[in-house]
């Protein structure tokens, strides 16, 4: 009952000091909202990346070239397909490409494979000399179905070291729907022969995506490796691990940077929560003089901060939800998704996890506590007469 009484006194104190409470809540929400939004976008992008990996092939095969992924002869796809346990081996060309000064991703796969993506495409599948492009690219370049697009490839002539650009014109046969993954926004999908000819790399592809029967990944990996010792084989679990590591690092760096921002925000909160500090000091003096113990005064202030956090954290969560869902993460998405401007042309993926809420609740409590508990404690240890003087 004593605790409940002190808790109710804390709630009463917050309503009595409406202006002060309001200013602290606004400050906390302003600090927390971008934090929650950024975390949700980061989690959304991460989830989409993992979904892409999960839905992709089980094994990706390239050649090892100076310790990096190198081109692989396309003929190996047929040999790999003969291995026991392999469902299919799909050669792919995947590369960065410059379109009107803009970087896009070119994906070339056999037409038979493109058919599986048809549900995402507005328009028709690409025939020879045709491409399907992402909505982001289409909007940026003002393209629609039937438009022509010239693709330029930076080709470096190795022998005389003089770079030159090749240009070919392709017809846009379809556009990826905006609700598909963010990776399709700047994607150019072409049939593999066109993709190979764009780069003039006859008989070579970027990688071979291998789909394997369940439980056969290890044995198939071993068999593929036996085909050529210079093969570089990456399994789905390895890709998943890379993605998770990459995003965790990105998220970790973000949290560290934001923690620095929090630390810088503490003086602001100190100044703000100092609003009405003399009145607060006098109140504490009166409470102590009328028999409240220091611990009871501190408990009341602690409860005040819990209540402030209980208001601020959900408010920040609601606002960040609006920011992402209604305003598509305007101005903040570009920090986490490469090549996206202030206004993303596709639907920003966001995932609101309980951990984001707990983190914002925790930071909210920490900030408001730092802003108030120390000054309260300092006041409680001084004899009440001195505080009231």
């Amino acid at each position, binding site marked *: *009952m*004593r605790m409940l*009484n*002190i808790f*109710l*006194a804390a709630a009463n104190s917050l309503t*009595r*000091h409406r202006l002060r409470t309001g200013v602290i809540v606004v400050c906390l929400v302003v600090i927390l909202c971008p934090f929650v939004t950024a975390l949700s976008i980061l989690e959304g992008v991460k989830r989409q990346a993992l979904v892409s990996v999960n839905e992709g092939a089980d094994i990706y095969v390239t050649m090892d070239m100076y310790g990096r992924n190198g081109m692989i002869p396309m003929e190996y796809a047929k040999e790999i397909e003969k291995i026991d346990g392999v469902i299919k081996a799909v050669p792919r060309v995947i590369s960065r490409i410059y379109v009107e000064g803009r970087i896009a991703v070119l994906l070339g796969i056999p037409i038979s494979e493109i058919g599986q993506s048809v549900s995402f495409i507005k328009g028709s599948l690409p025939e020879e000399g045709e491409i399907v492009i992402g909505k982001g690219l289409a909007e940026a370049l003002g393209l629609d179905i039937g438009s022509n697009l010239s693709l330029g490839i930076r080709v470096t002539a190795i022998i005389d070291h003089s770079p030159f650009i090749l240009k070919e014109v392709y017809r846009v046969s379809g556009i990826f729907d905006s609700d598909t993954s963010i990776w399709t926004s700047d994607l150019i999908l072409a049939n593999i022969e066109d993709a190979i000819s764009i780069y003039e790399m006859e008989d070579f592809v970027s990688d071979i995506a291998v789909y394997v029967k369940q439980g056969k990944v290890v044995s198939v990996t071993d068999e593929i490796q036996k085909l050529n010792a210079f093969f570089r084989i990456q399994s789905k679990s390895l890709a998943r691990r890379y993605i998770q590591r990459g995003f965790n690092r990105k998220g970790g760096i973000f949290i560290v940077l934001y923690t620095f921002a929090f630390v810088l925000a503490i003086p602001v909160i100190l100044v703000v929560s100092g609003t009405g500090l003399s*009145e607060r000091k*006098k*109140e504490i*003096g*009166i*409470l*102590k*003089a*009328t*028999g*409240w*113990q*220091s*611990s*009871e005064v501190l408990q009341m202030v602690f409860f005040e901060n819990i209540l402030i956090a209980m208001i601020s954290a959900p408010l920040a969560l609601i606002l960040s939800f609006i920011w992402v869902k209604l305003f598509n993460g305007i101005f903040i998405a570009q920090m986490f998704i490469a090549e996206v401007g202030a206004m993303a042309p596709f639907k920003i993926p966001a995932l609101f996890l309980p951990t984001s809420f707990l983190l914002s609740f925790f930071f909210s409590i920490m900030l408001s506590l730092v802003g108030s508990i120390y000054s309260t404690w300092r006041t409680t*240890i001084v*004899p*009440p*007469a*001195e505080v*009231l003087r």
Partner: protein
Amino acid sequence: MTPLIRCEGIWKIYRRSRSSEIVALSDINMSVHKGSITVIKGPSGSGKTTLISIIGTIERPTKGTVYIEDRALTELSDIALSRLRRRRIGIVFQDFNLMPRLSAWENVSYPLIPEGIKTYERKKRACELLEMLGLEGRYDHTPEELSGGEKQRVAIARALINNPDILILDEPTSNIDSKTAMEIIDLIRKLRMDGKSILICTHDGQLLSDADHIYTLHKGKIIDDS
């Protein structure tokens, strides 16, 4: 008879810097007996408020000891002192020290919050006290909506809410009109009749005439003890 409160060699020195200090009280020896009215008088700045603050445990002496029933206050922890103030000592400040954003009954009942008493019970007890002090119908008024005399009575009600046996009043009649002052003096007499030990700082002649013991302070020293 053993006094209820005994001060032995109380000194209070305020140090402003290493070289500058103000001696507010020097070697004060005095006592307050159970069920009596003890008055401390003296001109402004003589150290009256400092002395009653030390006896009321809201100020610590630089030197010396205050005993309440032979219990040395200097040996008590902050928690024990708070408990003592809550259960045995009621203090009425010269400028009332009411919380401006709280209503009269809330101001009176605030000391009961850490006792774990329910809001309904707290309000009932506070309103009973306020009614006893002639403030019926003023329970929900904030201090700024009350007159000086009403504030004084709210402050007295707050001091009495835990039914303490020691009541300390700092200039209880200085900020109010003469009619209200008479009512306060009557109330003090009544409280003495109830067995409370009362310590007052005052210049008021009426209160002086009711006193069982008067100490006169001058420049921090007791110059008369009658």
